[in-house]
């Protein structure tokens, strides 16, 4: 029962009134921004980071996590009712969800999505509960060489798996790596790219970069996007899906849970890819694939389950290894660092209340979401009418005030503005900011771990292959790097396959 004790204590942490309240606040904010098409969870978390500064670490992370998975619920609502995906991870829900709404089955679609989300989320938490301590058991085996390999793999996967142009993602990642080199070299004390400024001596802080690129950049970018006027929502009735619908969707929910769980763990994976993969899988498996796009319940249930499962399971690499799997997790990483908690293998052992408190809060959060999401649909749809003219300046102001409060530094505010402009320009020219931010976070880890390892190995790079974990990770790295090249060369020899039908231009909204 030794294993279960901390788990149960974690529930005691969640059930403290403050933590419950923040969990509720988190999921409500999450749903809200899930509904709003402009702001994604990463932007919201970036903006709200400084506000968590004065609360307990557990409470802060519980709230931020709530925003993340809450957004997955909220995004569904607008996808189904208005054909307006609130989140990138709900884009595929539009195809069948909106069709169902047109057929008068909006309630069924939302009901299926909520039930699927709940099951997917819960399944992933259970997976997390059992997998995390196993990974953490290897805690002390993770030294500099292992971190080198992990960081390398993470950056590569993020740059290659992310949706959008690969070359642009790689460029963004390279820029992130470059930014990570700013500051005093921690091995020689030499100043790099600081231009004699003491402000830059410790490098650029992660939080202003995230707040600028995700927060301010998004706000600026959204200002020039014209939103379609929100149409009156279709009538929502019959939230409980019929038995037939449930039977039809149950397979999709089961598969979505598993698929989402694994895609969430994968560095570079996450909710968006999980939802798309699930949609593709359901369509492939279906006996009558032509039903898809015309209101197939599986087309809603599968992706909605998968995106929630992935949103939850992407906490695993962060909380157990200290490696953020995607941009939102990079922000969680930043949030933990602000709180003086370094995520990593030691977290489960040294900070069990935090670890299990956060994990268990997800059960509660999912229940809250299930209860709230359907009755509140009407209110959330009304929020869509808040004009950008009001929303944008308010969020910009919160961002800048927040940036100041972290280090009481005007320099940070300037940084946020500079990176806000960079983020805006990146979005405008089709560069995803995710790889930049993630490469920035992992870049520092990569550089210092690699140099540390080489010192330990006496400068012999073969040392990385002498340790089982780092060797395995590096082999995977090589495979991931080489595989696409092989695949394209094979594809070139074969006659070109018909282009995949009507590829949706999906931009990852972070």
């Amino acid at each position, binding site marked *: 029962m030794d294993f279960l004790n901390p788990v149960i204590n974690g529930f005691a942490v969640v059930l403290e009134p403050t933590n419950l309240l923040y969990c509720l606040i988190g999921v409500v904010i999450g749903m809200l921004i899930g509904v709003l098409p402009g702001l994604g969870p990463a932007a919201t978390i970036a903006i709200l980071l400084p506000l968590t500064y004065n609360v307990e670490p557990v409470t802060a992370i519980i709230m931020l996590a709530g925003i993340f998975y809450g957004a997955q619920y909220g995004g569904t609502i607008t996808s189904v009712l208005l054909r307006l995906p609130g989140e990138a991870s709900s884009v595929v829900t539009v195809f069948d969800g909106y069709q169902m709404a047109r057929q008068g089955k909006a309630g069924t679609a939302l009901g299926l999505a909520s039930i699927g989300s709940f099951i997917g989320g819960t399944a992933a938490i259970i997976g997390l509960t059992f997998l995390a301590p196993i990974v953490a058991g290897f805690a002390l085996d993770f030294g500099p060489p292992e971190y080198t390999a992990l960081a390398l793999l993470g950056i590569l996967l993020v740059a290659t798996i992310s949706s959008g142009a690969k070359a642009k993602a790689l460029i963004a990642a390279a820029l992130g790596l470059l930014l990570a080199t700013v500051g*005093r070299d921690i091995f020689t*004390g030499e100043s790099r790219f600081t231009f004699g400024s003491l402000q830059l001596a410790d490098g650029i802080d992660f939080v202003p970069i995230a707040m600028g690129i995700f927060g301010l950049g998004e706000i600026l970018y959204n200002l020039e996007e014209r939103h379609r006027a929100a149409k009156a929502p279709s009538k929502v009735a019959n939230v409980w899906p019929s038995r037939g619908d449930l039977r039809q969707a149950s397979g999709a929910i089961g598969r979505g849970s598993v698929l989402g769980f694994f895609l969430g763990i994968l560095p570079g994976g996450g909710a968006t890819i999980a939802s798309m993969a699930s949609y593709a899988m359901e369509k492939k498996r279906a006996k009558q694939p032509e039903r898809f796009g015309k209101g197939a319940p599986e087309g809603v249930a599968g992706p909605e389950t998968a995106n929630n499962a992935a949103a939850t399971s992407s906490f695993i690499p962060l909380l157990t290894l200290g490696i953020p799997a995607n941009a939102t997790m990079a922000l969680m990483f930043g949030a933990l660092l602000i709180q003086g908690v370094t995520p990593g293998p030691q977290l489960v052992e040294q900070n069990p209340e935090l670890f299990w408190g956060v994990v268990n809060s997800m059960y509660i959060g999912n229940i809250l979401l299930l209860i709230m999401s359907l009755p509140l649909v009407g209110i959330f749809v009304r929020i869509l009418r808040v004009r950008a003219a009001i929303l944008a*300046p308010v969020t*910009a102001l919160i961002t*800048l005030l927040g940036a100041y409060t972290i280090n009481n530094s005007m320099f940070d*505010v300037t940084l946020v503005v500079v990176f806000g402009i960079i983020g805006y320009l990146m979005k405008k020219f089709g560069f995803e900011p995710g790889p930049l931010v993630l490469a920035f976070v992992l870049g520092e880890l990569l550089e210092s771990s690699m140099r540390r390892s080489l010192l330990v190995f006496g400068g012999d790079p073969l040392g990385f292959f002498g340790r089982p974990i780092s060797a395995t990770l590096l082999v995977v790295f090589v495979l991931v790097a080489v595989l696409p090249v092989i695949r394209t060369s094979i594809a070139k020899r074969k006659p070109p396959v018909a282009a995949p039908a009507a590829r949706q231009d999906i931009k990852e909204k972070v």
Partner: protein
Amino acid sequence: MKHFPTRRSVLGAASAITLLAMTACGNVAGGQSKTAEYPSGPINLTVGQAAGGSTDLIARALAEGASKTLGKPMPVVNKPGANGALATKEVAGKPADGQELVLLTASLITITPLAVSADEAVNIDDLDIIAGLSQDDYVLVASPGSGFKSFKDVTDAGRNVTFGTTGVGTGSQLAQTVLFKQANVTGTDIPFDSGKPALTAALGNQVELATIQLGEAMPQIKAGKVSPLLVFSEERNSFLPDTPTAKEAGYDVPVAQYRAVAAPKGTPQEVKDKLYGAFQETFKSDAYKEFNEKNMLTPKEISGEEVVTEWKGYAAKYKELVEKYDISLSGNK
């Protein structure tokens, strides 16, 4: 194609102006009132380290006591950066009216200048030191896999050892490099960002030795997971009475972290006296004493003049040691 409707561009411009305005009005604050009655308002205690670290905790414990005596709040302001140089330089440039104080670490004065360029270093003469606070000892620990139980085991091993430091230009690095030179041990210096990762590396046998501050290492020492070999203080540490000092083992490396409170140069004597009195009052309080005990800090509550003399002495001593053994802290050996 995208349009840029006028209303939206106006909006964009408006928020841009808001941003600019926000960035521009940074340095307006700061009271100017002359010291008719000190303190005239809240006294800011700036800390050059992040919140939650040992330096920050010391500042908060001190501020809590002193604000009671002085009858004005003493908020702790964290401005981390460049090992505290950023905060220290900023406070040194503030009006010398006693309303702005900084918590100073000795390593910034005595060791950092050995590792960084002159314009990045801080000169103690640019400040008025109010009072010394405490001493935070470094302990040399050995990883479980190294098999070292005493420093003699290290010298007898007759091989290259790997050692973790808490970073370039820290007492941890200075203490170990000098010690190994004196003991004729060849070692590979592996810098970490702070004490915690260095300790973790020792626990996981990624490095054989590491030197960290006692408060950080103590839980693992007590758990028997790392072995304490030496402390670098001149006398044995009361929290670790069975561990010999480097001096007893025959080496000349007196390294510890000291902390003091400082004000901008030219602060009036009566202000300094009032502050010194308030700090003395705090030192006597049970809460502050307990704080020191809990964090394994040895009180070093000396006057500002003594701090200057001692720290200058250490700075000269370290410079001499580094030159004598031809050590470069900035890694380009």
